[in-house]
């Protein structure tokens, strides 16, 4: 088996005296859809923030092995402590739990921002507008538009992002992340706040992205129906620890998982 795309070993994160992540191990293989689930406050988003460079983890290793387009052997890198933009450049792009679009930019421009790290033109190019720059700019526009078409947002192309309906905003975040040409897409609760119909569309969209774009996906999600139908494998977290992993079938019957969830429900009821 090839090296996993993302191999997180013993990831630990402390905030003052509070241990938010406790020796978490997770691996993601090429073309997999992985779900990360767990009760509220289990440390899922903290995990995302650590591997995308928003926090610098206190301990452990985050190793990535970016697949090369040519299919040649690629080398493994440790990305602890890189800045978020460097992580994105390496090929891991994310969305946010509470939507973070650029509200006063158009839908197309939002996606164009995603192309930033894959293009090079600078100040001089912008002012002189020479041939190379004009071509690069047009390529960015075209590529961004094609992504919008794929995600099904092309009819909103010139609208301001803040004027989009909620579900479309969530999809735009995915489109923007895809524009950075990631090998791994990290989705933080993509179905949150969606109605059942929108969730169903999201299900197809995510599978299509995996199949057509050859992008692996790691998602945090609370909608169990979506998680069970999408994922190849599931990791379960509770109190900052990974408590289980396996296929949807295994997770469904895992007593630890049931306890973690039911325990929470009992608290709510009592």
């Amino acid at each position: 088996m090839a090296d996993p795309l993302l191999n997180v070993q013993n990831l630990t994160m402390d905030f003052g005296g509070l241990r938010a992540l406790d020796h978490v191990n997770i691996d993601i293989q090429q073309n997999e859809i992985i779900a990360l689930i767990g009760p509220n406050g289990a440390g899922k988003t903290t995990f995302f923030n650590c591997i995308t460079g928003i926090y610098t983890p206190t301990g452990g290793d985050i190793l990535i092995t970016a697949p090369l387009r040519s299919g040649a052997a690629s080398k493994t890198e440790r990305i602890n402590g890189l800045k978020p933009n460097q992580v994105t450049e390496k090929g891991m792009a994310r969305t946010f739990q509470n939507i973070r679009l650029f509200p006063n930019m158009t839908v197309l421009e939002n996606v164009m921002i995603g192309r930033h790290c894959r293009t090079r033109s600078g100040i001089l190019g912008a002012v002189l507008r020479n041939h190379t720059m004009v071509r690069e700019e047009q390529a960015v526009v075209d590529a961004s538009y094609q992504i919008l078409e794929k995600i099904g947002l092309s009819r909103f192309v010139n609208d301001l992002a803040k004027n989009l309906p909620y579900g479309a905003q969530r999809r735009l975040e995915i489109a923007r992340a895809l524009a950075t040409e990631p090998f791994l897409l990290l989705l933080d609760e993509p179905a949150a706040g969606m109605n059942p119909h929108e969730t169903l569309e999201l299900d197809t969209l995510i599978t299509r992205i995996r199949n057509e774009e050859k992008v692996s996906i790691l998602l945090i999600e609370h909608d169990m129906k979506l998680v069970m139908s999408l994922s190849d494998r599931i990791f379960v977290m509770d109190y900052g620890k990974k408590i289980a992993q396996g296929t949807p079938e295994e997770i469904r019957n895992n007593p630890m998982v049931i306890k973690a969830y039911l325990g929470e429900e009992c608290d709510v009821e009592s």
Partner: protein
Amino acid sequence: MMTFTEIKKSFLTSLWFMFLTFPIMVIRVNTIEKQVIWRWENMWYVGIGSFLLSFVWRYFLRRKERGNNHANEHIANMSSSIQRIFSRRRYKIPAMVAAAMTVAVFPFVMNSYQTNIMITALMYVMLGLGLNIVVGLAGLLDLGYVAFYAVGAYTYGLLNHHFGIGFWTVLPLGGALGALFGVLLGFPVLRLRGDYLAIVTLGFGEIIRLILENWNEFSYGPSGIAHISKPSLFGIKLSFSGEITYMYFLMIGMVCFTIFVVNRLQNSRIGRAWIALREDEVACQAMGIDKTRTKLTAFALGATWAGMAGVIFAAKTTFINPASFTFMESAMILSIVVLGGMGSIPGVIIAALFLILLPEYLRAFSDYRMLLFGAIMVIMMVFRPQGIIATVRRNYNFKKAEN
């Protein structure tokens, strides 16, 4: 609806303001002769003024609350449709020709006094557009912009005074030194959050001014540098009015150059990154944009323009001293950007012309100039944060997928 409660509310507001302004507006003491002057008429002005204004204030406030999506959208659509009309070729070309004609004949029709005022106004257009890169596009609140202006002015003043170096040599040098200072200051402080950045830049601006004021051996202190050469024109000796006309066209050229550059930057990869940074820093970084580098380019470019404007200022007035570079100057440039609309080039131009020319032509206004600037900043932020001319995002031409 003018109901009884509305009138009562306004009445109470006016009573409150009459009370509030009583000691400052009504009483005036002559501390030396121990005399007290009572200006009761002011109290009535305040009372009536605040009574009427409170209706207007509440009306706009309610409209803003009610139509957060509705009414504002309407205004935005209106101003954007105005812009769309002007962006159409049919209207754009005649409008541009008319503007160009006015600009071209201005110094020959108007006297040199008025041309001089226009030169000053154009200088503020240039400064406003420069600061617009930093505040309007990149969303970095720079309250010490005037420091870079001073750097430019003193670069020319000192080089000209000591070595007799000419304007055209120093102009790019002033810009470069402005940029250098921008990078030197920007590098450590751009990590700071928005409001801290504002304070640090304010502090930096004051430091530069105080150094210029106190370091006599270097900057000749408060007495400043006099007899700085005016810009040369291929060594031709110009008459007094000729010099002003020359300065005017030089300024027009600089403003056109500035508009050209800022417009191109705004619609480029870098410009988009600035705007994205303004909109959401965290998301921006997560999309692969290097936060520090992007901020630094905006900061340095803004400073470059201030540096060049400083060189021109020194050449225009032929005399500089630290009093021209106070915080009030920064505040004035900032209010131009705020009034014009953050990131909007036509807005900034109109705001600069309006705010500089109005007090010059309406003498009654000139005393109230700073009062007006302060009020504008508050009112714009409360009622129309997007400025008089909101930016309209550009639409791009794209190829549809071939299938």
